[in-house]
């Protein structure tokens, strides 16, 4: 027994010696850090890479990765609410930047102002001014953005399009022409998945139908939802739906993307996390294995959404959470995370050589295009509107009545204070 004990002592001493220089660099933070997000499955590795950086810097902290699965955070947000209401906030949670955070948690006075952190880290200079406006109010800055996603992208497989004798459409009229050809060959023109992806498709169609100025006016409250522009958008959306797969509601967005990759469908409109899925999980080369164009009628427009992390008031391990936010906002963290996640960095000084061809093109568009906020992913409207919009979408998918949908939207907007 004694020998065993002596051996253990030696091992322990050796470990201490080897570990000492690293420990000197690392912080002496201790305890837990609970990170709440919906990045599971294909987006998991990107989050894991961030946690690795954090663990290297703070070896004393035990990181609890609390993910709740479900695309676009549909389930996670509900779990988060019960926890916040129950007085048990996580140390830091993922939230879509924009109205989803501000309209829900900031207006309820549940978040800590991060302006001091932004000043200390010099982030006010590295993040674009327009973005900081979106994540802040006059009372402060509320979250650290980790990425920028584009939502209005249409995906396809170049080789398949050649085989079917069509080209990627520039406008919806082009699409309808191509769709007829595809239908004749027994191919689904546009792959669609469950309800939230219909919301996602709607915002791209609506943007194409009404244009960016009207789109912004809509959310600023100066264009009413029952105006002819919106009705026309719903009409176009109904027409687009005719060319989608009828089993949509039983598919996940990955399955809809798979339909395109398998050649069962020609196109899919999905955010650019689909590029991450096709590159990282499906091991396809951007530009060869899959191609992309802005969704029809929206070239020169960049509909964006951003994931960000905030610091809830009363977080049990506040210092650990602040260290986590520092990792998220840092150039290293951002450039490690985004190539894996399939998004671009929110920072202006990111190292583009680390990104693949798709992301390079997205970064170029981000710099030059007209930027508008996404509805389906929380930038444009608060959760009251988003929650209600999901049920309006359900009813539209069944009834296909553009007038009723616009009227319902108008009533909902009144309720949501838009």
């Amino acid at each position: 027994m004694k020998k065993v004990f002596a051996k253990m002592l030696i091992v322990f001493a050796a470990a201490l010696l080897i570990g000492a220089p690293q420990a000197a660099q690392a912080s002496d933070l201790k305890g837990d850090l609970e990170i709440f997000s919906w990045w599971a499955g294909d987006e998991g590795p990107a989050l894991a890479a961030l946690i690795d950086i954090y663990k290297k810097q703070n070896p004393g902290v035990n990181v609890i990765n609390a993910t709740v699965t479900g695309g676009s955070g549909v389930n996670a947000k509900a779990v988060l609410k019960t926890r916040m209401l129950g007085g048990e906030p996580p140390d830091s949670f993922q939230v879509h930047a924009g109205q989803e955070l501000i309209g829900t948690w900031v207006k309820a006075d549940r978040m800590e102002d991060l302006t001091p952190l932004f000043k200390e880290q010099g982030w006010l200079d590295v993040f674009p001014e327009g973005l900081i406006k979106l994540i802040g109010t006059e009372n402060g800055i509320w979250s650290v953005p980790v990425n920028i996603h584009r939502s209005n992208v249409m995906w396809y497989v170049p080789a398949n399009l050649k085989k079917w004798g069509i080209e990627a459409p520039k406008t919806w009229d082009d699409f309808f022409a191509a769709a007829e050809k595809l239908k004749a060959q027994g191919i689904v023109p546009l792959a669609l998945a469950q309800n939230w992806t219909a919301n996602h498709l709607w915002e791209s169609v609506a943007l194409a139908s009404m244009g960016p100025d009207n789109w912004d006016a809509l959310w600023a409250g100066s264009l009413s939802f029952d105006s002819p522009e919106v009705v026309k958008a719903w009409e176009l959306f109904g027409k687009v739906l005719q060319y989608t797969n009828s089993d949509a509601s039983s598919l996940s967005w990955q399955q809809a993307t798979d339909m395109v990759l398998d050649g069962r469908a020609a196109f899919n409109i999905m955010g650019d996390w689909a590029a991450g899925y096709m590159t990282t999980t499906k091991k396809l080369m951007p530009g060869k294995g899959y191609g992309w164009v802005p969704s029809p009628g929206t070239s020169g427009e960049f509909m964006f959404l951003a994931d960000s992390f905030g610091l809830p008031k009363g977080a049990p391990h506040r210092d650990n959470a602040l260290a986590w936010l520092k990792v998220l906002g840092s150039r290293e963290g951002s450039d490690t995370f985004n190539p894996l996640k399939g998004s671009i960095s929110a920072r202006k000084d990111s190292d583009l050589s680390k990104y693949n061809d798709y992301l390079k093109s997205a970064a170029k568009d981000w710099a030059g295009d007209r930027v508008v906020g996404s509805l389906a992913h929380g930038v444009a409207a608060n959760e009251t509107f988003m929650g209600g919009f999901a049920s309006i979408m359900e009813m539209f998918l069944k009834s296909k009545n553009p007038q009723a949908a616009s009227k319902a939207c108008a009533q909902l907007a009144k309720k949501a204070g838009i």
Partner: protein
Amino acid sequence: MREASRDKWKAFLTLLPSMILIGVFVYGFIGNTIWTSMTDWGGVGSLALVPEKNFVGLENYIDLFTGFLGSGFRQDLVNAVYYSVMLLAGAVGLGMFIAILLDQKPKGEDVLRTIFLYPMSLSFIVSGTIWRWLLAPQGGVNVLPKYFGFDPLNFKWLSSQSAVLVFNWQDILRILVSFAAFILILTGVYMLRKDQSKAIKRWLVPGIALGAFVWLFGDIIPSALFMEEEHGFNLATLGIIIATIWQYSGYTMALYLAGFNGISQDLRDAAMLDGASQAGYYRHVAIPMLKPITISAVIILSHISLKMFDLIFAMTGPDNAATGHPALTMYLTTFRANDFAKGAAIAIVLFLIAAMFIVPYLIGQYRQRGRR
């Protein structure tokens, strides 16, 4: 006397803690939910530590039943009605059928009983996931005919958009009144044999009058909505109904089997001696004797159908109007749209529907006990 009153006190004191707990945690919370459903708690700032709430009366309920934004809820309510009826018919019918077969004491009865009861032990999430795969558009049930050399089916079990038995929600009041008239007339016809004058006075005449009124002057009854809104029995719910019947017919089977075993062999022999056939024995002797079992099965199953959440969530996800259910909408309204007041109103509507089943049953039970 003193002894007895001390006993009463003791009993009261023993029960007091549970009475207080139930008072607070059941009735207190029901009261709180009713109060919440009459406020405007929702929207921006609803998640603050001390949110702002104002009393608005029945506005939330009116919105749910006649408002523009309540159309999803109304569809869910219709779904729930069809779902309950189909589940009751399926689970009670199939369970009874299996029980009758097993009551013939075939070989390996114990094994068969276990097999049929087994699905009950699965959680809804598990069985929902299994059935989701089985009913996938390109898999499971749909490709089954291929193994027998036929073409695969292409029925969209969980994603079909078509509906049958469609009606217009505008007419809901008219439909409800006609339904009431129908029930009155039916009861009247049933009572005719027992007490003719009472049946005619109490049931038949009012029923016919009500029916005639709707028939002739139906336009006086206001429309529930200012525009057409159609709801019906969605074919996508079929898959969910099948899954629930699969899971619960074993349970009703066990109930009936226990009941059948409880009937004495003498009674059966006597019936047979009197010339009853097998079918006749069950039709006229066994099943009527098991009426209490049928009633409790119906009540339990209708409750299960009212709080159905996990199975539907696992099979078709949160947003699918065709298979939506009020319990699911309640959760989404409350925790996704932050509309706590409206969520509470949906909860109360469900609560009242549940009471519609259970209160008559309880009253019946107490009356029977009083008679004894």
